[in-house]
Structures are given as structure tokens and as C-alpha cells.
């Protein structure tokens, strides 16, 4: 506009009005800024200004809506239910020192999992567990046959089908002259198995084929077929589980029945009675009692008491001798002909600090313990912990391993008393 020069005080305002479409000046290319304005003219200005504003506002809203859907999509893609690979795991590192003989040691164990939801009902999870290969190994563990395991789940004919490929439990033997309390412990890893299960009206029926004692070549040493019928009524769960186990030249029938009582989310009682290979005698039985209390009185106390009594003929040599049982607080198998009283306790202290105690007292089936009873032992560990994140803590611990007979599990010759102190860090992510 000829009459609105560059340096004019209202120059910016005038051209802003032009940009917004409020005015175009007079047809002769002038603005006549000093002329008085009449009511018609201002009506025209204001009405046009309003229209331009509405247009801009609609445009902004459109952009915001677009952004919103983009962000929602991104958020969904990053969430676990999107089916994109989820990635999680845990890691535990330890520094340990024993006194007699003096050994300093550092090792770690890493577990990594990646999961992928293929569709709404099909999922795949792949796990890596380094077990003792993080420095505390004696031999070689193959990455693909031993360190990895995988589980796929899907639905078939209204039932859940799951397939597990895993190495099964892995024995750790401690290098000579190191920590006797770590010799012959087991890492519980999944067995290769195929399981089909369905549920209706409180009943769950599942059936599984389990491969046990698989050689690295993939040959299954012992095969197991089992069925499990479970029924839930209120706070009670009962189940019955018969097994048929067969190897190259022998087979075995076994059955187990259990009762789980969960009066609240802080209490749990579990009773198991199982009949093993020797069907006609008491020595073929196994009984378990477990009581969990997760801070029922809000004193920051968690207690688990567990008693496992295993008859001396519960399992068959060369077939399932070291199967069908869990490990105790120190990763040791419950062997036939023993009673194991396990206790674990956690007490919250000031702020993020806590005390932890766990022990296993192992006797023969008549509760006899001492130097005349090989295989009996008392192992306990006390720890002061500091929790720095969820599932993550620093622990300063002391462990004592007492084998009065000097002969531990699996006829392992050990000192009568051995102990160690250590510092460990655990991180869950």
C-alpha cells in the first residue's frame, strides 16, 4: 500500500490485517489510515476478523486431532499388549569370600526374556539364562542347547496349548577348592513339554507330555505322560495328578494329590501327598506342607515354612531318581529318604533396609541328624539388604553350611563346617 511506508508506526498492524483477510485497502492501492472509519467499515473488519479466527481455530483443532491419533498409535505400539517384542529380565551379581580355605570369587547370572504376541491368542517367549557360565563354570555349556529355552502358547479347539523347549534342570558342580555349599546345586530350567488344558465350571483338566533327561543330541531319556484335574471352590483348590513315566527298559506309575488353601492374598497353605514308585510301602510316599505368610499383620514380615518328607523309595533308580521334586532354599534337590525343614523370613527395617534369613535343616526320614547320618546337613544364610528399586536390591550376606558327617548330598566329601560372606546385587528390569 502506497501510503503505508515501511517505517510507519502502524505498518505491522496494517499488514497483519491484510494477511488475515480483514482488509485489502482501497482499490487504488491506498489504505488511508488517517481517515475516520465509519460503523459499516468496522462491522466489515470485525466480521472478517472473526471468520479468519474461526478458520484458524478449526485448522488447529484438526492438527491436534491428527497428533492425538498419532500419539495414541505410538503409545499402543510401545505397550506390551501391542504384540511388539517385550523385553525384560533380571541379573544377579555376587562377590564372595570364604575363610578356610580363603577364596575370593565373583560371578553373575543373567536372565533375559523376549516375548512376542503373534496374535490375540498366540504368544512366544524366549528366555536366556546364563546360569553358572558367568564365571563359575567347570565345563562348557552350549548356548543353544542349554542357555536358551522357549515357550509358545496358543488356543486350539477352545483349549490352551503350550509347547516348551527347554534343557530341564541343570546340575552345577563347584570347581575344586571353592565353595562346598554350592556344589551339586541345581538350576531349575523348564523341561521340554507339550501341554493341553481346558477349563469349565471351576474344573481345569490338563494333560501333558514331558521330556525328561534329554541328551544334547535331542534324544529323550525318560518320557512322561500326565493328566491333572484341578477344582477350585472358593478359597480352596484341590487337584489330582497321575503320571505314567517310561524309559528304555522300565516304567513307573505315580500320582500326586494336593490341596491349596488361600484364605487371603497374604496367606497360603499347601499340602501335597504323592505316591511314588514303591506302591505298597510307606517308603514310596512323599508329603509336603507349606505355609506362606506375606505380612499378614503389617509388620513388614514375610515368613515361609516348608516341610518336605520324601520316602526312601519314592523314585526309581535309572528312571526318575532326581525328577518330580523341587529344590530347597539353597537350590538343592529333596532327595529320597530325607526330611527337609525349610524356613525363609524377610523383615523390613528402617527405610529401604531389610533383613533376610533362610535355612534348610535336612535329616533322614526319622528326623535323625548328626555325624552318623551322611547326607544330613544344616544350611543357613542371613542377609542385610537394601532395596534401591522394584525387584532390585543390594545384599550383604553370611552363609554357613554344616555337614556333621562330612558327607553331603551325592556322597560329596565336604568340610564339617564351611562359611562365606558375600555382597550381591540383584536387578529386575
Amino acid at each position, binding site marked *: 500500500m502506497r501510503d503505508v511506508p515501511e517505517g510507519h508506526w502502524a505498518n505491522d498492524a496494517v499488514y497483519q490485517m491484510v494477511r488475515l483477510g480483514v482488509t485489502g485497502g482501497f482499490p487504488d492501492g491506498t489504505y488511508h489510515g488517517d481517515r*475516520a*472509519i*465509519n*460503523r*459499516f*467499515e*468496522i*462491522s*466489515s473488519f*470485525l*466480521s*472478517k*476478523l*472473526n471468520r479468519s*479466527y*474461526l478458520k484458524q*481455530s478449526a485448522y488447529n*483443532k484438526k492438527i*491436534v486431532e491428527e*497428533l*492425538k491419533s498419532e*500419539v495414541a498409535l*505410538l*503409545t499402543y505400539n*510401545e505397550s506390551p499388549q501391542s504384540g511388539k517384542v517385550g*523385553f525384560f529380565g533380571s*541379573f544377579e*551379581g555376587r*562377590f564372595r*569370600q570364604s*575363610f578356610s580355605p*580363603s*577364596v*575370593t*570369587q*565373583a*560371578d*553373575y547370572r*543373567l536372565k*533375559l526374556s523376549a516375548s512376542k504376541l503373534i496374535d490375540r491368542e498366540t504368544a512366544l517367549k524366549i528366555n536366556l539364562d*546364563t546360569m553358572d*557360565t*558367568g*564365571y*563359575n*563354570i*567347570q565345563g*562348557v555349556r552350549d548356548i543353544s542347547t542349554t*542357555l536358551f529355552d522357549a515357550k509358545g502358547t496358543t488356543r486350539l479347539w477352545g483349549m490352551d496349548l503350550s509347547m516348551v523347549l527347554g534343557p530341564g534342570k541343570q546340575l552345577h558342580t563347584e*570347581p575344586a577348592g*571353592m565353595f562346598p555349599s554350592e556344589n551339586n546345586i541345581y538350576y531349575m530350567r523348564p523341561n521340554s513339554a507339550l501341554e493341553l488344558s481346558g477349563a469349565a465350571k471351576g474344573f481345569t483338566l490338563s494333560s501333558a507330555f514331558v521330556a525328561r533327561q534329554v541328551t544334547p543330541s535331542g534324544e529323550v531319556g525318560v518320557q512322561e505322560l500326565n493328566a491333572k484335574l484341578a477344582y477350585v471352590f472358593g478359597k480352596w483348590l484341590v487337584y489330582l495328578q497321575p503320571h505314567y513315566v517310561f524309559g528304555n527298559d522300565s516304567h513307573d506309575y505315580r500320582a500326586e494329590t494336593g490341596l491349596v488353601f488361600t484364605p487371603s492374598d497374604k496367606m497360603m497353605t499347601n499340602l501335597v501327598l504323592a505316591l511314588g514308585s514303591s506302591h505298597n510301602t510307606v517308603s514310596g510316599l512323599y508329603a509336603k506342607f507349606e505355609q506362606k505368610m506375606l505380612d499378614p499383620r503389617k509388620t513388614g514380615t514375610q515368613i515361609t515354612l516348608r516341610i518336605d518328607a520324601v520316602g526312601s523309595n519314592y523314585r526309581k533308580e535309572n528312571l526318575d531318581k532326581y525328577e518330580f521334586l523341587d529344590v530347597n532354599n539353597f537350590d538343592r534337590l529333596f532327595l529320597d529318604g530325607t526330611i527337609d525343614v525349610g524356613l525363609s523370613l524377610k523383615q523390613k527395617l528402617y527405610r529401604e533396609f531389610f533383613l533376610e534369613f533362610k535355612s534348610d535343616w535336612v535329616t533322614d526320614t526319622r528326623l535323625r541328624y548328626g555325624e552318623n547320618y551322611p547326607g544330613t546337613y544344616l544350611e543357613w544364610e542371613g542377609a542385610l539388604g537394601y532395596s*534401591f*528399586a*522394584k525387584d*532390585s536390591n*543390594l545384599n550383604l550376606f553370611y552363609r554357613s553350611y554344616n555337614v556333621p558327617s562330612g558327607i553331603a548330598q551325592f556322597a560329596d566329601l565336604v568340610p564339617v563346617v564351611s562359611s562365606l560372606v558375600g555382597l550381591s*546385587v540383584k*536387578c*529386575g*528390569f
Partner: protein
Amino acid sequence: MKRNLFVLFVLSIFIVAPSFAATKFKDVPDSHWASSSVYDMVRMGITKGYPDGTFRGDKSISRYETAVFLSKLSKSISIESVNADLASLKSDVLALKKQKEASVFYGNYEGDWKIANLVSSIGGYKATVSSYRLISGVKQKINENTDVDINLDTEDYGYYNDGTVSLESLAANLLVIDSKIKLNLADLGFNNPVTLQLTYGPGPKKRSLDPTHAIPSDIGYVYWRPHTGIKAYTNLWGFDISGGYIALDNNTTGKINTSQFTGTINYKIGNVPWLNEIKLDATGDYVFTGMYNRPDCRNTRASLTLAAPLGSKIDAEGKIAGGGSTQSSLMVAGKLDLKDVWDTGTVATLQFSKIGATFIDPNFTAQEFYFTGVDPFNRVLETGTVNLGGKVAQMLDPNFTLVGKGEITLNSNYQYDTTKGKLTAEGGISYAIAPNTSLDAMYRIYQDKSVSDTSDLASLGLNYNF
């Protein structure tokens, strides 16, 4: 209820009705050029005209009237604000960003083809070697105070393995797990957070053999991997201090036979004339075998490093270190970084070191080797040598860079002789194919006086950072 609704209905007619009544100004016919704008104003509630039903559009407007119109307009423009939406968008994006940052996947891939002894024939070995090295990891932020880094480095396992490690275990040799936990110990007088760092790693590894027999210039190459250890560091009274315990030789059983205690104090001296700032770094180390009842063997070490920027484009660093009390256990080193000093796209580093014959304790040659540092070819510096080296990179254009490296090793009397004499020179060109990706071609000549052998090497490599 029905009755109430009826009352409401009637009321609403009375309230709403006036606004439906079309205002028609006597003096604004529909054909008037401004008629639509005028009735727009009425609809927006800005004006109703004069009480006598006229608008008097040709009348000049006063500043008062203008103010009233504008103020009413601003009230009438009820733009549906997008502010609330924007705020929620912002928090969603921040949450996404945080989630993304909580877990970072990173790495470096290096693959190359080498043709060894292209020209030289002494030694008799000719070979074509292809190998790769992959470094990759995940950094996971567990919470505000905790970071975990899980890192995999294939080192020389990517086809160039010298076979010195019998157990090629993933977990014991290739993985490093590093966790940093920030602790708030203000109660104990530490005003700054104390970081506790726990690391599980195999420690640095030196190539001691050449599996191809044709690339002797790679012997001594160091794969820098952290040791297993615990370290705590914080800033106290302006000093950066750290202390730690390091397992110098955790083998595959994790048993630690040689341990190291280490402590470092780092101080920045500001306002130094000409130099502005000097960084002073003092480190003390104590290396030992046997904690309680083993035959003992110990070594105390110390080093002092002084670093200063000479202007913004030159960094200078000097270091003196001792591995014992005699003169032959001393090491002096200096380094000069020239960061494009003449604005010609030239970056160069010069380094000098003189290492005493017993700088590394003879009892700990395997564990302490890395204390001497490395030459420009990332090879560990030997004891009883003087080493002069440098690197230069000249940018030709944004994609092409010429690179050169060289080093000469002399004996401690500054002689190039058959005891320690070595010379390596390398020149090449690097082409940036894409951001973080380069294709590198280079040629290297290496002379080892002790075996009076000269070898050469041409290589083409791909380097990718992710």
C-alpha cells in the same frame, strides 16, 4: 417431573426467543455492501444498532465505540481452546520419550576384508582375511537412580580368534554387565550422591598371537573390556573421588587370585593464567595376590596426570606413573590433541611415552599389562620402550576423509634397534556412506626389527554405528 420439564420448556422459549427475532435495521437493506457483515455483528452480540432500529453505518466511529466493539468481539470469539488437548498430548509424548529412553539399544559393527602381504614377501605368508566385530548392548534405566548396561562384544571371535581362550563362553568372555546405583548418603555427610558401580566383565584382552600368521601388526591389539569390580564415586569438597576393588584375573571359575584396590582423586583448578583450567588426576593402586593365607605378592602403583586446554582447540596432557620405587619402574607420557587448529579440517593427535623396564611388576605381567596404555594402533605399549606416535585426519569434503597413523618404537636409549624397534605406518581414506556408516580403505606397512621382517596390509572395511 413432567410438570417441571414443561415449566423449563416454557421458560426456555422466553429466554431464547429474543435472539431468534431477526433484527432488521431500517437503514441497512439486504443489498447494502456491508449488510452481511453488519448482521454478523448482531449475531455475535457485538451491537444491536441504535434503539430507533437504525445502524447509522456511515457515521464515524469513536474510540470508545471501537473499544466496546473489540472487547465484545474478544468475548464472542469462543474459540474452542486446544490448550487442554495440547497439555495432554505433551504429557503423552513425554511418557513415550521416557519409555524410549528407559531402554536404549546401541552398538557398533565393524567388518573388514584384509589382504596381507600384498607387496612384501619376507616371512612368506600371504593371506586374505575377513572378520567382523560386533559390539551391541542394551542400556536399561530401572529407575531414577539405577542404570543397567548389558553389553556384548564379539572381540576377535568373529573369525579371527587366536585360540588362546579355550572356553569360548558367551557369559564369561563376551558379556559385560554394568550396573550403577546412585545412593543418597547425605546423612553420612556426602552432599552429592554416591554412585556405586558394579561391573561384571572379563577385563581387557590382548591379542598375543596372530592366527593368520600374516598380520603380525595386530599382535598386541587390545580389546578394551571392563574388569569385574566394585567402584564407588562421588564429588566431595570439589574433588571427584573414587575408590574401588577390581578382580584382575577372574577366570572361568570366577576365582580371584589377583586383586587390585584403586583410588582416584580428580581436581579441576580454575582461573589459571593463560590456561584457564587444569585438571589434576592422582591415582593410587595396590595389586596383590592372596587375601589371607596365600603366598603373598604385592605391588603399589601411582600415577599423576595433568591435563590442560591450550585455548579451545588444543588439549595437552602429561602423565607420570610408577609401578615401583626404582627409576626403571617409572613411565612418562605426553599427549597433544590438535582440534582443527588452522580451520583446514585437520584433526591430529601426537603422543609420546617412555616406559621403564620394570614399570609392570614382573609378577603381574599378565594382569597389569594395560597400565602402560596403547599406541595409535590400539596396541599395548611395551615396557623398556620409547614410543612416538600420531594420528591425523584431514577432511576433504563432508563425505571423504583422509586418515593417517604412525608410530615408532625405540629402546629406552632412544635407538631403533633389534631389541625393541618397531615401525608402523598406515594411510587410508574413509568415505561416509550414510550417517554413522563409513567405508574405509587403508594400507599399512609394519616393520619389526627384532625379526627383521616387514609386512604390509591392505584392507577394506565397513563401520556402522547404531
